[in-house]
């Protein structure tokens, strides 16, 4: 086992055990490379997340966690490497992938002059879904639906991001710093939503510089990959699992 690999017990927050051995893989990424202005950020990152699994991407600031999540979301095109998303046995290209993911990230913003409800309603119309689920999420997360997005506190804005990510019940959740600015109640509420999402058979990728209070199936440590690359070794990081996958 390479030094950047680690193992964590595959126990859901709810206590349900994951059965990766019988679930087909959903999200696969191979040898992803990306950089900015000649500065390499991702150096051959690979991984595989199957139905119902949670991949934790961790690493120091600047190790490429957000870049990886944006690449997986289709919001950045990696300079090389492949990303495959299989849903219902079908492969989806980056355009189709964008429609099937739910994304929470610090860079996700809303129209400040529109209310939280109007922002979600707009995206619901774009996706061709009823706004009911989005409204229920706002209510469950305690977001003031009729307040302009520009007048929301940073914690409420993060709750709105979660509502945006989940309102179309995506098969894939990509979460970059998902608990940022949330208070204890907010963190508990979104963790419950994440558990429900995984229990439905969807998958999630969570990027965070710190160890979260989540049970994860796989861990990808980008700091270790960066260290290996810097040392001139083969720059290939693999998401590792508890032994049921990978």
């Amino acid at each position, binding site marked *: 086992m390479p030094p950047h690999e680690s193992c964590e017990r595959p126990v859901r927050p709810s206590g349900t055990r994951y059965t990766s051995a019988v679930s087909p893989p959903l999200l696969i990424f191979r040898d992803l490379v990306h950089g900015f202005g000649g500065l390499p950020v991702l150096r051959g990152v690979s991984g595989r997340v199957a139905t119902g699994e949670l991949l934790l991407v961790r690493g120091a600031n600047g190790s490429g966690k957000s870049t990886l999540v944006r690449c997986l979301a289709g919001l950045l095109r990696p300079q090389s490497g492949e990303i495959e998303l299989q849903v219902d046995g079908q492969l989806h290209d980056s355009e189709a992938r*964008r429609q099937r993911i739910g994304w929470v990230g610090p860079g996700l913003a*809303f*129209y400040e002059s*529109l209310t939280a409800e*109007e922002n979600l309603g*707009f995206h619901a119309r*774009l996706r*061709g879904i009823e706004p009911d689920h989005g409204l229920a999420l706002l209510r469950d997360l305690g977001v003031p639906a009729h307040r302009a997005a520009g007048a929301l506190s940073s914690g409420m804005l993060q709750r709105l991001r979660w509502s945006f990510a989940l309102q179309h019940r995506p098969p894939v959740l990509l979460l970059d710093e998902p608990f940022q600015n949330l208070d204890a109640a907010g963190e508990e509420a979104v963790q419950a939503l994440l558990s429900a999402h995984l229990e439905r058979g969807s998958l999630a990728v969570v990027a965070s510089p710190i160890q979260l209070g989540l049970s994860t199936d796989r861990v990808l440590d980008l700091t270790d990959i960066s260290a290996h690359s810097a040392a001139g070794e083969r720059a290939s990081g693999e998401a590792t699992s508890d032994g049921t996958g990978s």
Partner: protein
Amino acid sequence: MIWLRQALAVLAKDWRTELRTRHALHTIALFAVTTLVTVSLALGPAGVSSAERTTTLPVILWIILLFAAAAGLPRSFVAEEEGHTADALRLSALPSAIFAGKAAFSIGLLWGLELLLTPLFLAMMDLPVGAPAALVLILLLGALGLAVASVLVAAMVAQARSRGALFPVLAFPLLLPLLMMAVELTRGAVVGGLDLNVLQQLVLYDASLTVGGLMLFPVIWNP
């Protein structure tokens, strides 16, 4: 149907946010009115001889429309990028539908501007129009091309750092043929005629720009 629904949703959203913030409305209206008043005070009905009136005034009308559009329309995509709302839009909608919705918003904005500005301009400059229906048609088609070109260039400019300088540089070669045709047709409408060849060229220009924009926009918009 998905495409149309998304385009209409973007159009409705743009109008809703615009009516609340009024950034583009204020910029375009203030620029148009200020320029119109300046031109009318400087030239006025007596400032231009009747012989030169049909030659000069259509050019001034289109210059006012061009600069009013250039002052307000580039915001459509810059605001999405600067406000960091573009990524959510990328995740939720097809690129060509976003382009269509934003182009429809800009067309509506320019048509509204023309509705207010043109009668004022004709009255203040004392310019009689021989073929009013033809003038309306030219204004509609000209604004369509102007709006679609502006939205396309705005989408390109929004991805760049030196946004302010880039818009006129990119827009000028794209808009020059449109303005030449629009001015020539407006001159004809003022004297009561309509050059059908030039009108066909304008329609073809608008159609090419719209189809080209729909095809090119995903390349600009997608990462």
